[in-house]
């Protein structure tokens, strides 16, 4: 299998899907500059640079999606989505329902986020939960190049607007090459590691922190199951519940602010639907309620690290219910 980065995987998915379907187009601030191989293959109309204006990029994607094209737009960094919220939330997310089903919005929005480049809170802000909370939108965030490729292919083929978040910290780390044409279905989690004592649920870069934690826990005799959500909406409640039914213990981990994050949703669903199986409190590890600092040590400290995951899992496994 070839080795490629998540950045390459996105390029590969775009290439394959643009070959497969002439309705797929891509535009954004610099996408034609950065992905000139796409321009070379598909032409300057299907792969375009745009003015620096996220609102009209997203709005144009919404209009185009409703009328026959399948746009992929690169909005660069997640905080810039703030300029495109109306288009994504009020238009793409709602106009299908509000029109009685007259329109569909097959569009994909790419945005990077997360620690790794020390660029501060206006580039690094994990806002995926906003879109999980908003109706009519799907949300994915892969943790590997293979998943990135497969999920992007699925997202492009999906008839709904998909927010595709890219963890900056993973962008240039090489990984296993995905199989050509393999599609990773939206809404399906992956069991990254099997285990029986505690379930660690995560997505994005903290999946790797969970894996590392699981290894450390194994050395202590604690068997941790690691679930990589991959899709945040729809999210794979069945896989998570099945795991918690087995382990009785849950730690949810993500880089985004804990408050009303995806972890809150998972904890709440488990507290409702798998209550009887729980042997210990549900623990969430997430970013603090603070913007992310640019300074390297603070940026790193923002992200739940393996040690904290190990400590939380250990606490749960040692605890006896009163």
């Amino acid at each position: 299998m070839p080795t490629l980065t998540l950045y390459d995987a996105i390029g590969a998915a775009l290439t394959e899907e643009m070959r497969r379907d002439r309705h797929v187009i891509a535009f954004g601030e610099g996408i034609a500059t950065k992905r000139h191989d796409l321009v070379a293959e598909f032409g300057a109309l299907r792969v375009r640079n745009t003015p620096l204006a996220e609102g009209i990029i997203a709005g144009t994607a919404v209009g185009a999606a409703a009328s026959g094209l399948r746009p992929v737009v690169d909005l660069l960094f997640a905080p810039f989505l703030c300029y495109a919220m109306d288009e994504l939330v009020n238009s793409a997310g709602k106009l299908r329902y509000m029109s009685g089903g007259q329109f569909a919005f097959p569009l994909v929005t790419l945005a990077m986020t997360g620690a790794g480049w020390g660029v501060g809170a206006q580039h690094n802000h994990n806002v995926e939960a906003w879109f999980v909370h908003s109706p009519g939108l799907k949300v994915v965030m892969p943790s590997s190049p293979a998943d990135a490729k497969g999920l992007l292919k699925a997202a492009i083929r999906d008839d709904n607007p998909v927010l595709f978040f890219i963890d900056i910290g993973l962008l240039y780390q090489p990984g296993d090459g995905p199989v050509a044409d393999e599609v990773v279905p939206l809404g399906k989690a992956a069991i990254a590691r099997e285990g029986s004592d505690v379930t660690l649920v995560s997505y994005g870069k903290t999946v790797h922190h969970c894996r590392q934690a699981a290894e450390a826990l194994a050395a202590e005799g604690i068997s941790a199951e690691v679930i990589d959500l991959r899709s945040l909406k729809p999210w794979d409640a069945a896989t998570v519940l099945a795991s918690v039914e087995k382990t009785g213990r849950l730690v949810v981990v993500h880089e985004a602010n804990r408050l009303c994050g995806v972890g809150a949703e998972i904890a709440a669903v488990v507290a409702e639907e798998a209550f009887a199986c729980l042997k210990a409190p549900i623990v969430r590890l997430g970013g603090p309620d603070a913007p992310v600092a640019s300074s390297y040590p603070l940026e790193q400290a923002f992200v739940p690290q393996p040690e904290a995951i190990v400590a939380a899992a250990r606490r749960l496994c040692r605890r006896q219910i009163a």
Partner: protein
Amino acid sequence: MTPHPANPHEIDARPLLEQMLLIRAYEEAIVAGSDAGTIPGTCTSVGQEAAAVGVVNALGADDLILTNHRSAGHLLARGADPGRLLAEVMGRRDGYCKGRSGSLHISVKELGVVLTSTIVGAELSMAPGVALSQGMLGRPGIVACFFGDGAACEGSFHESLNLAALWNLPILYVCENNHWQAFVHRREAMSREHVSEWASSYGIPAHTVDGNDVAAVLAAARVAAEQVRASRRPYLLETWTYRTRGHFEPDDQSYVDPAERAAWLARDPIARCRDRLLADGALNPSQAAAIGDRVATRIHAARAFAEASSYPAADELTRDVYA
């Protein structure tokens, strides 16, 4: 070569008058129902009928329309069924959007009225994408994007016009400058008198027309639409008009300058059109009465249709959210 007369004097305004009367009667029925508590309030376009009718009649069947919260004129001039519209306003299942839209965001895809949004400025943000599809998928129609003077103050106006000019998108921007942005007069909101002044700075040809003269609007819109069709580039037409009722029913308009309103009421587009037709001899009083009767009959039937339509069932709550 223009297929239609672009000279207002050559236009047969009789069908336009009938459309305007239909719009007026439809909105008056809503106002009456809203006063009586039987129909939800709406944003009426009373006083602006010529602006809608003139432009919509300049469009072809292939052309697409984006509109907003104040859309009755665009929809009816395009041929929408007043019964299905009223059903929509009343939240009934036979409405064009199954009752989910209500009055503020009615789209009728089968008539080419797409992606209506009540977010002021959203029509501007979506129009380039619709126009892009037209071009890339080889469809002939142009895109008419209706918006208000208020929408022109949103950032999406700037972003949209810049992109349309840059990408050569076939968009006929139609700004209905009705002097009001809800409860704020355009003077309190715009550094300029005319939205057309803003268009020019993108290199987009622009023109302001008397929006209360239906023949003048139609003529100007034909010129504009032909130019968009021929050049595949945007054009901005500003219809200078006035919202003579309130922003949203009910509205006592206590904040409106009575003199300004009176001056515009004296320029009512329907009265002007009818008086001119009568004066020209193009219409006689009994023909005028017949039009009035036809319109009344249609609105009556529309009300009956809408009232007979039931509310959506509870399982509609989450249907059509995802494709």
